């Protein structure tokens, strides 16, 4: 992220929330099996376009307002989905995700406070649009899991809960569900850039790793 926060406190908080979310991902990957088979394949090691990231994360952010919109809207959208899991019928999700909600509370407080300071509408509207796309269509898998009781909320309820949390209505959005990618849960094509993809795979860090004993012996 080639972006600086307006203060050291904000920088520290942003980094800490990022670490929280990485931890949440690890927990989630370990307990989502009851909701369906893992859709990830080996292509995720070589093809950035196979990653299930929202378009919002395709390019590195350049403005603090982009971070605030993601923190306030997208992170809270994630939180309401976790609420739907915790209050659904899947026992492992009920138990293992509860702590996540406690940690996400501080993300919400951070996002809401910065949102009150006023940010540009561009990133905000985009975050709302992508949150609604991520919840899915009225007849998609989220709706099915809601009907089955595994999630306590479907797309409409998730959107309503997000609006309730943010104390505002979502801006006018139009989603072409026929063009929507049901696997990547996004309405537009694209992928993260090669440099970020390399960082995610640990390739960037390898540049700074000390040479191995074998390499040393060869030289």
């Amino acid at each position, binding site marked *: 992220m080639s972006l600086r926060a307006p203060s050291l406190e904000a920088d*520290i*908080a942003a980094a*800490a929330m990022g670490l929280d979310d990485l931890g949440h991902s690890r927990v989630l990957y370990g307990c989502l099996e009851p909701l369906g088979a893992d859709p990830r394949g080996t292509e995720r090691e070589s093809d950035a376009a196979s990653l299930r990231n929202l378009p919002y994360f395709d390019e590195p952010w350049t*403005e603090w307002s982009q971070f605030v919109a993601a923190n306030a809207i997208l992170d809270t959208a994630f939180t309401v989905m976790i609420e739907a899991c915790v209050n659904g019928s899947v026992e492992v999700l009920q138990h293992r995700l509860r702590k996540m909600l406690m940690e996400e509370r501080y*993300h919400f*407080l*951070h996002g809401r406070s910065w949102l009150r300071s006023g940010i540009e509408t561009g990133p905000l509207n985009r975050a709302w649009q992508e949150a609604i796309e991520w919840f899915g269509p009225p007849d998609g898998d989220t709706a099915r899991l809601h009907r089955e009781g595994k999630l306590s909320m479907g797309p409409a309820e998730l959107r309503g809960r997000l609006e309730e949390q943010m104390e505002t209505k979502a801006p006018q959005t139009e989603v072409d569900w026929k063009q929507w990618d049901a696997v990547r849960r996004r309405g537009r094509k694209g992928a993260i850039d090669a440099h970020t993809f390399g960082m995610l795979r640990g390739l960037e860090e390898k540049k700074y790793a000390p040479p191995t004993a074998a390499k040393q012996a060869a030289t």
Partner: protein
Amino acid sequence: MSGYKRVSGDAVEYEVFARKTRVEPLHQVGSVVAPDADLAMAYARATYDEERWCEMAIVRKEDVIHLWSPGDA
């Protein structure tokens, strides 16, 4: 980023208190500057969470009533 100040609104200093066990008293672990209690809580948690605190609290610095301070007679 020029449109953003260090904090939004008027900055307020909050003292951060915490303790690791129920049997020890709360003690001051640091301070944060934020425009409101929401952000101060988020900053305090992010900045001072290196220990396994069983309790953390923040207090507006201006709400602390001093009986005396260093240098007072």
